[in-house]
């Protein structure tokens, strides 16, 4: 039982970080029906930026979020304007899949050239410390990472529910045509939305580099996890992404401890399959309205 509880603690803390990464993905999909498969690569890019700031300028990785996030927001806006917005016609969604995949490979290539393919890790002095709580080891960075993720997700949620921009986003998610008729500038919403999606990846990336060793190829594994989280939670649903990410974190950790690490990643897909059989739209997804 001790092992299971320890695993649940780990799973919840890690799930929070995955939720942050997935939030950007689900937001972008919600607004413009673009599946940004470069989200994983953007997370890794941010991990490298934060790593570089830490090693060369001794900027604390958690503080580096304040620098990396706005920088990556700008990058996201540029990517949307240059690559994604230009896609037109009925195949735009499918094409965006290819374009963002190309972006992912491009980022991987550039990182391989600059940083080589060896593993890196951002190692602040507190990276491996943990608190002893009732006999359970609670890693300090994981708690910090979870809190940072929670704060950012809360900010994102406030932005979406309490601001004029948020209302435009939600209107676009629910019914783009009606939103446009009511004067929502869909292009502006898409561009800013994409930028926010990327900046969520950026914040998560800075944290990711402290938690795990990474190399330019780490994004393949990340994106498969993130896509599963987003599908399980319901495409376009922020709350769904959070719940699904926590579910994934806990399932994987518990299965790895109690059964075998070989089945850990797979077990989450079993959950995904079962949920999709019962609720094809995901846990919090809305059934697509058809005419």
């Amino acid at each position, binding site marked *: 039982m001790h*092992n299971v509880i320890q695993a649940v603690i780990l799973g919840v803390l890690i799930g929070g970080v995955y939720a942050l990464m997935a939030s950007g993905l689900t937001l972008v999909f919600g607004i413009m029906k673009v599946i940004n498969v470069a989200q994983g690569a953007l997370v890794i890019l941010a991990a490298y930026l934060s790593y570089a700031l830490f090693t060369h300028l001794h900027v604390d990785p958690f503080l580096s979020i304040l620098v990396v996030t706005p920088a990556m927001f700008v990058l996201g806006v540029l990517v949307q304007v240059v690559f994604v917005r230009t896609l037109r016609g009925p195949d735009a969604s499918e094409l965006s899949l290819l374009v963002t995949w190309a972006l992912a490979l491009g980022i991987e290539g550039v990182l391989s050239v600059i940083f080589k393919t060896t593993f890196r890790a951002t190692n602040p002095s507190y990276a491996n410390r*943990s608190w*002893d709580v009732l006999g359970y080891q609670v890693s300090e960075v994981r708690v910090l990472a979870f809190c940072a993720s929670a704060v950012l997700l809360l900010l994102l949620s406030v932005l979406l529910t309490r601001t004029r921009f948020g209302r435009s986003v939600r209107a676009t998610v629910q019914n783009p045509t009606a939103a446009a008729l009511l004067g929502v500038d869909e292009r502006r919403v898409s561009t800013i939305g994409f930028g926010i999606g990327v900046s969520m990846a950026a914040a998560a990336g800075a944290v990711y580099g402290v938690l795990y060793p990474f190399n330019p190829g780490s994004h393949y594994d990340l994106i498969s996890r993130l896509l599963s989280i987003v599908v399980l939670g319901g495409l376009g649903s922020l709350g769904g992404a959070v719940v699904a990410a926590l579910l994934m974190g806990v399932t994987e950790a518990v299965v*790895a*401890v109690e059964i075998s690490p*070989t089945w850990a990643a797979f077990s989450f897909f079993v959950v995904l399959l079962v949920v999709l059989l019962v609720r094809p739209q995901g846990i919090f997804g809305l059934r697509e309205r058809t005419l």
Partner: protein
Amino acid sequence: MTVTPARRLAAVLVTSVVLAAAVVASGTAAHARTSAGPIKIGISLSLSGDFSDSGKAAQRGYKLWRNVVNAHGGVLGRKVELIIQDDTSSPTQAATNYQNFITKDKVDLVFGPFSTLLTAPSASVANRYGYAFIEPAGGGPAVFQEKLHNVFFTQPAPALQSGDVFAKFLATLPKSQQPKTAAYPSLDDPFASPIADHVRGILEKRGVKTVYKTIYPSETTDMTPIIQKAASKHPDAIIGGTQNGDAYAQIKAMVQLKFSPKFVFLTNGPNDPAEFASKVGAKNVNGIFSTGDWFPQERSPGNAAFVKAYLAAYGGKSDTIDPTSAEAYAVGQVVQDVTKKIHSIDNKQIIATLHTGSWPTVEGVLRWNSIGEPQGSDLLVEWINGKLYPVFPASIALHKAVVPKPPWGG
């Protein structure tokens, strides 16, 4: 046009005859060539693709050897010329490159590429044409199971036996200090888990109880649940078949879970003197064992000169020299010695001669069995006071091993 079975058969027969003739012709040509001019050596290397970091390291080693040997008058009085082709880390391209070196470029000798994956098919091509295949980095079972007599692997031991040195070391400790239980968390990788399995086989026979073993898939990023499970069994030793990323994550997980076993041996990761400490924190390295085929401070034949020449040519620090460069350099050393001994660059004679005697290189003094498996032992290394030292076998030790492992620094 329809192709009848008879016609197809005829076509196949004609092609085979032509190919066979070509093989015989080129084989003869290879043996007959004794002209002056430079000695041409064909090498396929992964200069792009997945293995490009290591491929380039091998290239540095080969080129350094060429420069050194040419500065000293070459091989048998002839200059050495390397013909290096990129194989994009693809086994088929590597095999094609060797085919071209031998049949089109008519090189005198060939040297091996990087990794077992590329060495196995390439060695077969070389074998078909009667070329010796002295190779720096193909030490896996795929290379040796072909049972080729032209293969010579220039590292002290085959890849899967590289962890055995840790078992040998444990046997030298007083009984009271030896571990009684062990856990084996290993990566699902042909060059990780089988090494730990081999060590486990030896230790189990010696009565060391296996309290936990698991093989995790390469996509496992979080090592904490696995280490947590291992820790709950309270093993004296953690023996992990690892690559770099998962090794770093295992150590971080042990520190975070405040689990400090008496022995930690990981097959890869801790053996990188330049990278390891920065990945797990300098306070958490002491007492960790790993293994390797070459170390910058090693007192092997020609090693000090190699390190000096390397730093002069490429800069950097000795700790950052990739062992692959030393392995490639050793290939050159072997060729230099064997040609000197037989006064010829005849491949048939080279193969026959290398199967006898022992050959001094920066990788140690090498001997091979009939299928090219080296008969030595890798080095056991340990982090002591924040530095990586060879500690076993005693003949190469630069520091006395420290056991048990001191507690984590946090």
